[in-house]
């Protein structure tokens, strides 16, 4: 099925906006995606008609909100094909999900001298929580490097793993390079040596179908706002046995069974890890977003985005002095680049004047920038509502900026 892009664009009200008097070209989708009317309307509907704090309420509204939240959990479960509903934990986002695992997993499984492996191309969210835990536990953080194309050096992985290695945390898709990492192989290698694996899927669930029972990660985390849902909601998937063994991370309401000053007993999964009033309206929005994406079909989305990537790569590569960072064979629709002699901030500012939204800087991946010995890049990232005409506008915009710098 080919996607009807003009029809799809009408679902996203923001795409009709003008910026600096020009039609908005939104190429910052790897930072956050725009929201379709269906998601916005559903959330508005809940605030208008059904809002009430969820769980343990006896009244009608509380039941409606609870049903909405738990229905969203069911949608997520089916979306990633988790075996159990209670393996889906709602968090504030990917960052909180990684922090939850880093803290709770470490509390139970990481001792002094143990090792944690991350890759060189992780987002800070998948480095810093592990660094903090390693500092606290006197454990060692090891790094799986990538090559100059932006591909992980998989041949080095086995050598990195020792009997002390407890967990490997790696992204499925790099947010700054666009590389699609071979996570199936990575998980196999790690599991063969009894190492647990956390997959950061923040940049992948919106592009590729993920089946956690088939791929077999121990944990998988992602954010709602990068898959056309609202901010403030994310997902931690974890295997039941592991989650049961792990202690609660945050304390508060909802996560308890009984509270006495002599001691407290904890609730069961998933609530054990959901302290405090959860962002149930956002969870409901996320459910709608997943329904929207599934109706279009992730395969169709991916096929079209690959078309945009190929088109943009060819166009941008033809610009003199433009270098693309991240040239892996398997990539998603992200292009990080620099034009010789033009600072990324200048490029981003001038493109913004033309109504083109790109992201500039390190993209929260300073170790990736250090690899290439640069301070940052300009990043254009495409979603299924983008068009080739918009890529033409970016191409012409970059040429215009280049011209301004010639004088």
């Amino acid at each position, binding site marked *: 099925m080919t996607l009807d892009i003009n029809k799809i664009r009408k679902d996203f009200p923001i795409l009709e906006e003008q910026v600096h008097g020009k039609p908005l070209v939104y190429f910052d989708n790897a930072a956050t995606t725009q929201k379709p009317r269906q998601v916005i309307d559903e959330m508005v509907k809940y605030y208008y008609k059904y809002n009430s704090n969820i769980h343990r309420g006896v009244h009608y509204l509380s039941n409606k909100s609870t049903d909405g939240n738990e229905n969203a959990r069911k949608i997520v479960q089916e979306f990633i094909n988790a075996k159990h509903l209670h393996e889906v934990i709602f968090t504030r986002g990917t960052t909180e999900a990684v922090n939850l695992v880093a803290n709770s997993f470490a509390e139970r499984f990481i001792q002094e001298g143990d090792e944690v492996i991350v890759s060189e191309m992780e987002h800070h969210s998948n480095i810093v929580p592990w660094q903090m835990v390693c500092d606290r536990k006197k454990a060692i953080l090891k790094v799986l490097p990538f090559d100059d194309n932006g591909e992980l050096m998989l041949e080095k992985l086995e050598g990195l793993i020792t009997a002390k290695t407890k967990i490997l945390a790696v992204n499925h898709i790099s947010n700054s390079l666009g590389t699609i990492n071979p996570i199936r192989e990575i998980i196999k290698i790690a599991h063969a040596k009894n190492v647990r694996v956390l997959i950061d899927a923040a940049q992948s669930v919106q592009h590729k179908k993920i089946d956690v029972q088939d791929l077999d990660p121990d944990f998988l985390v992602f954010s709602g706002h990068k898959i056309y849902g609202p901010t403030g909601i994310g997902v931690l998937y974890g295997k039941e046995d592991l989650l049961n063994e792990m202690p609660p991370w945050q304390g508060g309401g909802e996560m308890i069974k009984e509270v006495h000053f002599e001691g407290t007993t904890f609730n069961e999964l998933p609530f054990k890890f959901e302290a405090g009033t959860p962002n149930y309206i956002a969870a409901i929005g996320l459910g709608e977003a997943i329904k929207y994406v599934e109706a279009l079909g992730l395969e169709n989305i991916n096929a079209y985005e690959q078309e945009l990537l190929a088109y943009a790569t060819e166009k941008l590569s033809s610009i003199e002095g433009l270098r693309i960072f991240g040239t892996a064979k398997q990539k998603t629709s992200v292009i990080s680049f620099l034009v010789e002699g033009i600072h990324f*901030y*200048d490029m981003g*500012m*001038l493109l913004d004047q033309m109504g083109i939204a790109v992201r500039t800087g390190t993209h929260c991946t300073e170790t990736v920038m250090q690899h290439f010995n640069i301070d940052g890049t300009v990043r254009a990232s495409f979603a299924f509502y983008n068009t080739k005409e918009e890529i033409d506008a970016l191409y012409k915009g970059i040429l215009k900026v280049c011209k301004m710098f010639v004088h």
Partner: protein
Amino acid sequence: MTINEIQEQIIEEFAGFEDWMDKYAYLIELGTDLTGMDTKYHTDSNLIKGCQSKVWFNASLEDGIVKLEADSDAIIVKGIAALLLRVFNNQTPEDIMNSNLKFIDEIGLKQHLSPTRSNGLVAMVKQIKMYGLAYHHVSKQ
């Protein structure tokens, strides 16, 4: 010229630009023309590190007059720094202390000086004011 007179002059200059292209082309020109600082002064103590761009900034007091130098790795930022130097360089500490920075807003470059922009310019403006205050106290003693 006083700080305010220079600010008025800049506002007048920018009023002549018809579109954003002219305005930014001028900033690029200013940035390119600013001598900046010898790279040996690109030291950590002079560096204001934003996550988008770097600004190097240095101030000194000579005969009761504040001398300022600035540099940046991004040309537009350097162009705006050049405008800030035009306004504040060679002024007295008291005049800097009592000044009211208004030209940035009026020529439509406010977005570059929003606190979240992290290009180093906000910190540079703050430091200019701080130096004004500090040198005022130094010269009083």
